[in-house]
C-alpha cells in the first residue's frame, strides 16, 4: 500500500503541475517599441532527428544551424538575428503536427524549415491557413503547385524534374543507333512512386525503350531476386529511387549477378555514405544532387569550410545551409517592404529571380503561380570512391510539368 500511496502522490503532483503549466503558458509579450525592431526573427525547424530518416535529418539540421550562424554573422536580417528552434518530428505526423501548432501559436515563428514528406504534406493545409511558409526538404512535385500548396517551398528541383534532367543527360550522351533501354527500380512507397509516372512519360518522349520495373524496399538487405528478371531485359540505364542503404544493396546485388548497366540514383539515393556502404560497387554510378558536395570550388563553400573548420560534411548539410540562405534572402526583401510576417516572406520568396546561393545550388526563382525553384540538377558520378561533378543539367520550365 505504501507504494500505492507514493504513486498516488506522484500522480497528483504531476497532474497539478500540468494544470499549472496549462493555465500559465499563454502570454509571452515581446517588448514592442517605437524604435527599430531588433527582436530576433523566430523560425521553427521540424526535422527528423530520430526515426527512419534521421541519418540524413541530423546533417540537414546541422546545415540549417550553421546557415543561421552564417546569416547572423553577416549582420542578420535588417539588423535582426534569426533564431532557429530545431525540434524532432521523428517522421511522425502527429508529433510534427503538435510541434507545428506550438511553434506557430505559442512561439510565434514566421517561417518553418521542414523536412520529411509525411509531416510536410500533412501540414499543407495548416500552413495555408496560418500563412506560414514552409521551406522543406520534401521535394515531391505536387508541393510545387501553389494552387494546392500555396505556402510550400523547397530549394531543390522536385523529384520528377531531377529524374527528367538525368534522363535528358543520358539521352544526349547516347551514341548508338538503337533506342536506349531503361528500367526503374524503386520502393513501393509514396516517396519512391512519386516521380515514376512523370519520369516514364518523359522517357518515352525522349525515345527511351522502357523495359521493366522492380520494387526494392527501403529496408531490403538483398535485391538479387528483384534484379535477376531485370538483368535478362538488359537495360542500358537503371534508375534507382530510394535511400543510400537501399541503393547500396541494389548496387552490391547487381555486381554479384554481373549486371552490366549504368545506374543513376535520386537525391536521397546517393551521398557520401554510399561509398562506405557499397565500396567499389558504387563506382561508376551517377546521382542527382541539388547542392555542391563538400570542398567544391564555389564561393559559398569557403563560408561553409570556415564554419565547419574544414571538417567534411554531407551534401544534405549543404542543402540545409542553402535553405537558410534562401529564407534569409526572402526575409531581407520582406523587411524592405514592411514587417516580416509569414505572408510577406511568401511574397518575397515569389519575387526571387535567379537568386544564386553562392554557387552552392543551381539558381533559384519562384513565381506566384509556380513554386518550382529551378529546372536544374547537378549530376555527380562516383569515381574511385569520390563524388565528382559531371554537369549541371537544365530543363525547360514546361507548364504541364507543374505539380507532376
Amino acid at each position: 500500500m505504501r507504494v500505492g500511496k507514493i504513486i498516488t502522490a506522484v500522480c497528483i503532483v504531476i497532474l497539478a503541475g500540468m494544470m499549472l503549466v496549462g493555465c500559465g503558458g499563454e502570454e509571452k509579450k515581446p517588448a514592442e517599441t517605437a524604435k527599430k525592431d531588433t527582436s530576433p526573427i523566430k523560425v521553427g525547424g521540424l526535422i527528423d532527428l530520430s526515426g527512419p530518416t534521421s541519418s540524413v535529418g541530423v546533417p540537414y539540421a546541422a546545415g540549417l544551424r550553421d546557415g543561421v550562424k552564417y546569416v547572423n554573422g553577416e549582420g542578420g536580417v535588417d539588423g535582426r538575428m534569426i533564431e532557429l528552434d530545431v525540434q524532432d518530428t521523428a517522421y511522425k505526423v502527429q508529433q510534427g503536427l503538435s510541434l507545428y501548432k506550438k511553434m506557430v501559436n505559442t512561439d510565434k515563428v514566421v517561417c518553418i524549415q521542414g523536412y520529411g514528406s509525411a509531416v510536410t504534406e500533412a501540414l499543407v493545409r495548416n500552413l495555408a491557413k496560418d500563412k506560414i511558409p514552409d521551406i522543406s526538404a520534401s521535394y515531391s512535385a505536387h508541393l510545387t503547385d501553389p494552387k494546392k500548396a500555396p505556402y510550400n517551398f523547397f530549394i531543390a528541383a522536385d523529384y520528377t524534374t531531377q529524374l527528367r534532367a538525368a534522363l535528358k543527360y543520358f539521352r544526349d550522351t547516347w551514341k548508338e543507333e538503337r533506342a536506349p533501354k531503361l528500367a526503374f527500380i524503386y520502393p513501393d512507397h509514396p516517396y519512391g512512386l512519386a516521380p515514376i509516372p512523370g519520369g516514364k512519360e518523359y522517357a518515352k518522349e525522349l525515345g527511351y525503350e522502357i523495359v521493366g520495373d522492380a520494387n526494392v524496399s527501403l529496408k531490403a538487405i538483398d535485391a538479387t531476386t528483384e534484379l535477376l528478371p531485370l538483368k535478362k531485359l538488359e537495360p542500358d540505364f537503371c534508375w534507382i529511387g530510394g535511400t543510400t542503404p537501399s541503393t547500396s544493396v541494389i548496387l552490391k546485388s547487381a555486381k554479384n549477378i554481373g549486371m552490366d548497366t549504368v545506374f543513376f540514383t535520386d537525391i536521397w539515393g546517393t551521398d557520401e555514405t554510399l561509398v562506405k556502404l557499397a565500396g567499389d560497387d558504387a563506382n561508376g554510378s551517377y546521382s542527382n544532387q541539388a547542392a555542391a558536395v563538400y570542398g567544391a570550388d564555389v564561393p559559398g563553400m569557403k563560408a561553409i569550410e570556415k564554419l565547419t573548420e574544414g571538417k567534411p560534411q554531407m551534401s544534405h548539410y549543404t542543402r540545409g545551409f542553402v535553405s537558410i540562405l534562401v529564407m534569409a534572402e526572402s526575409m531581407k526583401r520582406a523587411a524592405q517592404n514592411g514587417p516580416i510576417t509569414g505572408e510577406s516572406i511568401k511574397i518575397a520568396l515569389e519575387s526571387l529571380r535567379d537568386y544564386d546561393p553562392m554557387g552552392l545550388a543551381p539558381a533559384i526563382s519562384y513565381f506566384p503561380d509556380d513554386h518550382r525553384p529551378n529546372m536544374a540538377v547537378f549530376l555527380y558520378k562516383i569515381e574511385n570512391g569520390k563524388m565528382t561533378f559531371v554537369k549541371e543539367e537544365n530543363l525547360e520550365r514546361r507548364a504541364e510539368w507543374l505539380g507532376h
Partner: protein
Amino acid sequence: MQGKCGLFFTSYPGEAQLFPSGFQKLMIGLFLLVLLAAPAVLNVYLTSVMNLIFIAVIGAVSLNLLTGVCGQISLGHGAFIGVGAYAAGQCTLHGVPFPLAILTAGAVTALVGMVFGVPSLRLKGIYLAIATLAAQLVLEYVFLHGGELTGGSNGLLLDSPSLFGFSFDTDARMYYLLFFFAAASLLMVSNIMRTKFGRAFVSIRDFYLSAEIVGVNLFQYKLAAFGLSSFLAGVAGGLWAHYTGYVSAEQFNIGLSISYLAMIIIGGLGSVLGSVFGAVFITVLPEVLNVLANGLGAYMPEISQHIVALREGVFGLVLILFLIYEPEGLAHRWRLVKAYWKLYPFAH
C-alpha cells in the same frame, strides 16, 4: 462494488446504470463543464493536443471493444482508421455534408472490417493477429495504389469540415466537434457493453467454447465486434482526415496500429475508461518527453542530441514497465486510487 459505500442495488437495471450515484453524476457533469470551457483557457497548442487526444480516444475505444472486450486481437487497426479517412475524404470532396460523410466513412470501414474479420471464426490469438496484420498490409497497398480513389502517392487534400455554412477551421472549433464525437463514441461503447452484444463479446473473450455452449453464435458476434469496432475506427479516421486536411498512405502504417494497441494495454483492456487513459497517456507522452528534452537541452546542450535519440527508447521502456508493474492498465490503478480514498483514513 464500484459505487460508494452503502450503495446497494435491488434490481438488475439499477446495477447496470452507467452512473449509479448522484455524486458520480455531479462529478461527470463538472468534468464535462471543465472540458467545455477548456478551449477558452488553453492556448492553441494545448487545444491541438486535446484534439489529438479526442481522435485517439475514439480509435482506442474502438480497438478496445474488439480486442479488450471481445478478445479479437487486431494489428490492422491503423489501416481501418485509414479506410475511414479516405472514405470520409472522398465523400466531402464529392460534396457530401460532413456528418453524413463521417457516417458513411464509419459504414464503409465497418464493411471492410467485417470482411477482414471473417477469418476470426477459425483463427485465434496470435494467428488472428497475423491475419489482421495481412489486412494492414493489403490496405496500405490499396491506399498507395488506389489511383483517383486515394490520390496515390500524392494523397488527398481536404478542407476543414463545415456544417450549415459554419466552418470548423480553428482548433477551438474543431475541439468541440471532436469532443462531441469522442463523448458519443464513449457513450456508444459503454452502452454496447451493457447490452446482449457486450455480454456475448465478454463471454467469447473469456472462453469461446462456453460461450458457444450457452448459445452465443460465435461467428455472428465476432463479425459484429469487427463491424462495430471498425465503424468507430472509420469515424476516427474521418475526423483525423478533416482535422489535418491531408490524407496520405504513410499516416496509417503499422506504427499507428501498434500505438493504438499500446493505448489499450496501458489504459486497461476491456475498459472504456482505460481507453481514455491510454489515449491521453500515449498522446501526451511524446509532448512531455519533448518538454523534458528541451528543458534539459537548455542546460546541457551536448546532451540534448542523445535525449532525442533516447526518446524512442524511453517510450519502449515505459511500455515494458507498464506490462510488468501494471498489467491491468491505468484503469486498474484508478480503481485502486478510488478504493484508497473510499477507505481513507482506514487502510483496510
